[in-house]
């Protein structure tokens, strides 16, 4: 088990200080990921998905109140690294990022090619021409014409920018790529194209993905595992073949029912109520207030239960 484990996150916490109080954006998250698999993290907006990605990548804003837990990547606890060790050994070497909106993720005044080649120069000590050649190769891999290397981000379409961002994430061949809503800003056709690119890359480069999205439908074709996030916590983790037909957590069920389906006669439902505020979240189960199956036990914080290799944080499975 241990030798196939790529990433294990234990009790990861990331809290922010704001004028209103402490925001518990990531509050005790556990999950793991084996080599060459993709886990999709789903949840509503504001549930802490993006903060989870930032916590794993150690991209912390100024107002961090608490940042703790363990992240074992390829066998070492990268939380133990200091900033410089983390930069040299983890960033873009072990894991890279494809950001949410690639327009803002690319420096507007530097040519795309230079931005893609940059990590290779820093981490692989490549000479500028070598790095540029690697960037060119990656552009071919993701389907961007090599001419675009000399263009500036504003001269690229949304789809091309996103592909460039993927090329950038691949240039140093990391073992883990975190994709933060990689297709949400794009039209459907482009979304499908990008998803195909990602699938092909996963196959060819044997990389692993953490895919963060609220778009369950699109992610289903790429994902091997699903983690459902709610109010800063992961409430359910399971493999796709079993999760999609039969989600365990009441929230997961609700979430799956809210997805419109092409085939079938069920109307999409919506989840009543608002997710709890991450400042002073409720004690006990955080979904209790909106849960149709709520009972007395729910006032206590549920532990994680293991149901045949699937893990769920709900008293129904006690």
């Amino acid at each position: 088990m241990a030798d196939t484990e790529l990433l294990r996150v234990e009790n990861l916490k990331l809290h922010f200080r704001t004028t209103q109080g402490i925001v518990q954006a990531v509050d005790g998250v556990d999950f793991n990921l084996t080599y060459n698999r993709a886990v999709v993290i789903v949840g509503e907006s504001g549930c802490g998905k993006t903060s989870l990605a930032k916590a794993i990548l150690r991209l912390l804003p100024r107002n961090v109140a608490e940042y703790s837990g363990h992240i074992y990547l390829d066998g070492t606890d990268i939380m133990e690294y200091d900033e410089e060790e983390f930069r040299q050994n983890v960033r873009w070497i072990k894991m890279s990022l494809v950001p949410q909106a690639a327009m803002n993720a690319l420096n507007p005044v530097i040519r795309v090619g230079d931005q893609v080649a940059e990590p290779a120069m820093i981490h692989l000590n490549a000479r500028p021409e070598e790095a540029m050649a690697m960037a060119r190769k990656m552009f071919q891999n993701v389907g961007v014409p090599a001419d675009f290397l000399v263009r500036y981000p504003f001269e690229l379409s949304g789809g091309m920018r996103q592909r460039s961002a993927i090329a950038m994430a691949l240039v140093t061949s990391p073992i883990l790529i975190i994709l933060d809503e990689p297709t949400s800003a794009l039209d459907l056709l482009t979304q499908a194209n990008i998803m195909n690119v990602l699938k092909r890359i996963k196959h060819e480069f044997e990389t692993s993905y953490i895919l963060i999205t609220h778009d369950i439908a699109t992610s289903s074709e790429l994902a091997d595992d699903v983690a459902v996030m709610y109010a800063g916590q992961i409430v359910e983790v399971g493999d796709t073949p079993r999760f999609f037909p039969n989600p365990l957590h009441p929230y997961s069920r609700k979430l799956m029912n809210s997805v419109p389906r092409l085939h079938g006669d069920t109307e999409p439902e919506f989840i009543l109520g608002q997710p709890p505020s991450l400042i002073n979240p409720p004690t006990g189960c955080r979904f209790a207030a909106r849960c149709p199956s709520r009972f007395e036990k729910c006032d206590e914080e549920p532990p994680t239960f293991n149901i045949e290799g699937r893990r769920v944080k709900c008293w129904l499975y006690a």
Partner: protein
Amino acid sequence: MSEASVPLDTQAAAETKRKATVSTLSRILRYTVVRLIVLFLTVVVAVYLTILIANMGGYVDTIQRGQIQEAVNMALATNPAFKQLSAAEKQAQMAAQISIQEKRLGLDKPFVVRSFLYLRNALTLDLGRALQMASDSGSKQVKNIILERLPATLVLFGTADVFLFIFAILIALSLSRKYGSFFDKLFITLAPTSSAPGWFYGIFLILIFAALLHWLPFGGLVDAPPPDSKLMYALSLMKHMILPVIAITLSQIFLSAFTWRTFFLIYSSEDYVDMAKAKGLTSRNIERSYILRPTLPTIITSFALLVIAMWTGAPIFETVFLWPGLGRALFTAVGLYDTPVIVGSTVIFAYLLVITVFLLDIAYALVDPRVKIGGGESRPQ
């Protein structure tokens, strides 16, 4: 598929690099040409407006008439035949000559026509003759008087601008790094002091360093009499420049550093800065390429407005420091009611502003690839 299986095409990469350079150059070149044309038209309009304002009371006409009168006098005085004539005949002859000349220069034409003649004169720097003032070399041509003063103004404000820009950027960067520190708070607190202009600080500086402490001169360009050797002249010039340069810097540094620091902070919360960090760039690299570079266009815009305000403030500033530049020439001309010099200096100021705008436009184009050429030629897809 591993790294080695596809050979790296460094040749193509070098080609890419060359293409990048060529595209940058051609972009800047095209932009320069377009801006040059636009700004030329702008300066034509600006100078024309200046002439209209000046001539609302017929002052440009007066300049022209004065010049004709003097030219005719000179011509006739050297003419031996003229000396033989009686006073009345002399008068008549002079009047006739003057009216011929006025006709030749178009003074009999309606103002609309005349105004364009004046515009042409102003654009070709044919600024007429001064009534009272003279250049140090004795010339009464307004052009010569102004050209003699211009270097002093350029040296002073050029130095001050460069000082201010470098200091403000360095301070702003260091403040944005130490966001919330004591110095950061100090600069926030002191930023409102920049509402006072340079000349105002100048008065205080003169009071302290010249009047009370006698460390530095009250004003002027160099010691009197001017030192003979070039080195001593330069040293004397530098000594005289200390207070004015400090006055300009002092009056603007707090606000500029504060504003630019805020730009840096706003820009450093952009997603691409996080990306750069995720990519494992060193913080020095991030600061240089991902914070400073993208912020530079905004800073240049803010600096351009500052420089323009400084140019136009030159008459007051140079008066306080007795600096024999263009601004003080204007002030002296006001005192002597020397209209040709007043109009001429104003025109030259318009040129200075246009050149400043042009240079800063080019700087802007160099740091921001997104500049549009002539309104719609950029090609976002």
